[in-house]
C-alpha cells in the first residue's frame, strides 16, 4: 500500500500523541524521584539522589521491597505450575463444553473487580487467620496471577503440534516424560511469558494487598500507597522508578529470550 507523505506524517503525529498520553503520566515520576526538595512538585527545581539513598537506608522500605520480591517469586513459581497444569488438563479434556466453562471460571479473576475479590478474600482470611501472613499474600496473588499463565500457556498449546506427543508415546515415553521432554520445550515461550506476567501481577498488586496486609507484613505497593496518603515523601517516586525499571527489564528480557529461541 502506498500512502502520501501527508497521510504518513499525520499517522506519525497521531501515534506519537497516543504514545505520549500512555507514557507521560508514568514518566513524570522519573524526574520527580531525582528532586532535591521534600515535595512532589513538578518539575523539580534541583537534582539529587537523596530519595534513593533514603529508600535503601530505611528498613521499612527495604523490608517492603524484600517482601514484594519474595512474594512475587513464589507466586510466579506457583501460578506457573498451577496454570500450566490447568491449561494442559483443559486442553486434553474431551468434554469440550465442560472444559470451556471451567476455563472461563479460571479466568474470572481478570474480569471480577479487584475490590470485590478483595472483600471476599478479606472475609475468608479473617476467619482463617491468614491476614498479614506470607502464605496469605502468596495465595491471594496466585489467584490473580493464574489467569495470565492460563491465557499464555493455552495459546502456546494451541500452536503446539500434539502429534509430537503421540510420536513420543510410540517411542516409549510415558505421559510425564512426554510432557517434560517434548511438550514443555515446545510451549516454553508461553510458559516463560506466563511466569513473567505472574511475577509482575504480584509485584504491583495493590488493592487486595491493602486488605490483607498487617503492620508486620506489607508489600512495596502497599507501603507506597500508605506513604503517598500520609506524607508526600519523594522516596515513593524513587521506589516507583525502580519498580518501573525492574518490570520493564523483566518483560524485555522475557520477550527477547523468546524471540531468540524462535530464530535458532
Amino acid at each position: 500500500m502506498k500512502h502520501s507523505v501527508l497521510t504518513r506524517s499525520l499517522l506519525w503525529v497521531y501515534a506519537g500523541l497516543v504514545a505520549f498520553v500512555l507514557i507521560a503520566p508514568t514518566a513524570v515520576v522519573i524526574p520527580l524521584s531525582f528532586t532535591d526538595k521534600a515535595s512532589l512538585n513538578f518539575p523539580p527545581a534541583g537534582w539529587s539522589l537523596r530519595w534513593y539513598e533514603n529508600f535503601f537506608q530505611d528498613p521499612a522500605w527495604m523490608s517492603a521491597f524484600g517482601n514484594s520480591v519474595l512474594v512475587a517469586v513464589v507466586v510466579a513459581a506457583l501460578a506457573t505450575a498451577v496454570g500450566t497444569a490447568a491449561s494442559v488438563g483443559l486442553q486434553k479434556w474431551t468434554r469440550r463444553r465442560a472444559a470451556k466453562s471451567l476455563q472461563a471460571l479460571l479466568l474470572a479473576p481478570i474480569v471480577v473487580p479487584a475490590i470485590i475479590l478483595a472483600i471476599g478474600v478479606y472475609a475468608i482470611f479473617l476467619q482463617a487467620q491468614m491476614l498479614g501472613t506470607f502464605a496469605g499474600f502468596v495465595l491471594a496473588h496466585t489467584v490473580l496471577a493464574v489467569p495470565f499463565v492460563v491465557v499464555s500457556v493455552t495459546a502456546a498449546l494451541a500452536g503446539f503440534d500434539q502429534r509430537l506427543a503421540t510420536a513420543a508415546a510410540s517411542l516409549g515415553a510415558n505421559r510425564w516424560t512426554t510432557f517434560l521432554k517434548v511438550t514443555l520445550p515446545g510451549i516454553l515461550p508461553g510458559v516463560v511469558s506466563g511466569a513473567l506476567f505472574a511475577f509482575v501481577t504480584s509485584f504491583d498488586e495493590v488493592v487486595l494487598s491493602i486488605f490483607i496486609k498487617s503492620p508486620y507484613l506489607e508489600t512495596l505497593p502497599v507501603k507506597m500507597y500508605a506513604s503517598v496518603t500520609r506524607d508526600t515523601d519523594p522516596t515513593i517516586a524513587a521506589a516507583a522508578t525502580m519498580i518501573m525499571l525492574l518490570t520493564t527489564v523483566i518483560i524485555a528480557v522475557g520477550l527477547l529470550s523468546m524471540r531468540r529461541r524462535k530464530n535458532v
Partner: protein
Amino acid sequence: MSSQLAGAGTRIDIQNVTKRYAKSVAVDDVSLTVEPGEFITLLGPSGSGKTTTLNLVAGFTDLTSGSIEIDGQRVDNVPAHKRGLGVVFQHYALFPHMTVAENIAFPLQQRRTPKAEQKTLIEDALRTVGLSGYGDRYPRQLSGGQQQRVAFARAMVFSPRALLMDEPLGALDKNLREKLQLEIKRIHQEVGRTFVFVTHDQEEALILSDRIAIFNNGRIEQVGTSAELYERPASLFVARFMGESTVFRAPVEAAGPDWSMDFHGTRLRGPAAGQVPGRGALVLRPEQLRVAPRAGDAPGGAVKVPVKVVQNIYLGSGHKYELRLPDGSTGIVRTPLAESNGLRPGDDAVVYWSDRDGVLLEDSDLVSTT
C-alpha cells in the same frame, strides 16, 4: 540394518475390532492376522478406516469392541508407550528442539540403553537410512525426504516388535517416493520384522507388500497377495481398486457354475463362479481383452460384444483402447504392438475374449459410476 537390529517378527492378531465415533463407525468388525516378518499393506480410499486401524494397533485410539493381540498377548488395555511398536507418521513428527542424533536417541533413553551402546545404535541407524554424518543437524535443516529417513531410523533403532507406517511417503514427490519405496523394501528384507504399511496408492502397495488388505467403508473387503487380488478379486470394489478393468453388468440367468448373462443381446459366459443372485458383474482385465474392426476377425469360440472406439492411445510397447460399451460404460483394452489394427476414435468395433477368462461377481454398485 546391522545384526543388532535384525530379529524375528511379531504376529499381530486383530479380531472383530470395531471403532465407533459419536456419528460414525470408522472401523467396522475388522479381523486381520499379520504373520511374523510379513509386510502387509492396508490399502483403500480416503476415509475407509486405514489410519484408525493402525492407530488402534499402535494404541493411540481406544477400540469400541473386539481385541488386538501381539504375539498372543492382549494389548487393548496396554498404553501406547508400553506396546513396543515403532511408528512412522506421514508428517514425520520429529522433535524440532532436538538434533537428528537426539531424536534417534529418544527411544533408547526411554529404555535406559547404556550410552556407549546408544552411540553405536544411532550410527548404525543413520547409516542404514543413508544419513551418516547428519547427527548434529536439526530437523528443519533437512529436506522432507531426509526428515522422513530420520523418522524411519528413530522408529527402527530400538528394535520394535513391529513397524507401523501411515502413508510415510505421502508428502514426498514421485521420484523420491519411488526411491524410498525401494529402500523400505530393502530394510524390511534385512531386518525381517513385521511391517504394517498404510497407503491409498495401489502401485505403492504392489511394490512393497507381501499381502494387501483392501479397506472400504471401515471394513476389509479382501486380504491377499497382489496376484490373488488382481486375478481373483472377491468383490467388484476390489476389482475396480486393484488395477484397470472392464465390467459387463447384467442380470444373471441360471445362477450357479453354468451361469450366463444376457448383456444387451450378447450371451456372456465364463469360468464357474459362486452363487451370484440378482445382478452380476463380469470383470475382465485389459490384457485379457482384444479388439477388432469386425466380428468376423475374432476367433470362433470367443465372446464378442460390439463397441465404439473412444480412444486409441499409442504407448510404445503397445496400444491402449478406450471403448464405449453398449450400456454406455467404459471398457479398457491393452494389446501388444504387433496387433495394431488401425482403429480410430468413432469407429465401430468388436471387443472379444476367451470364455475361460473373466471373474463373475455380485454387482454391488447401486449407482453406475463409469
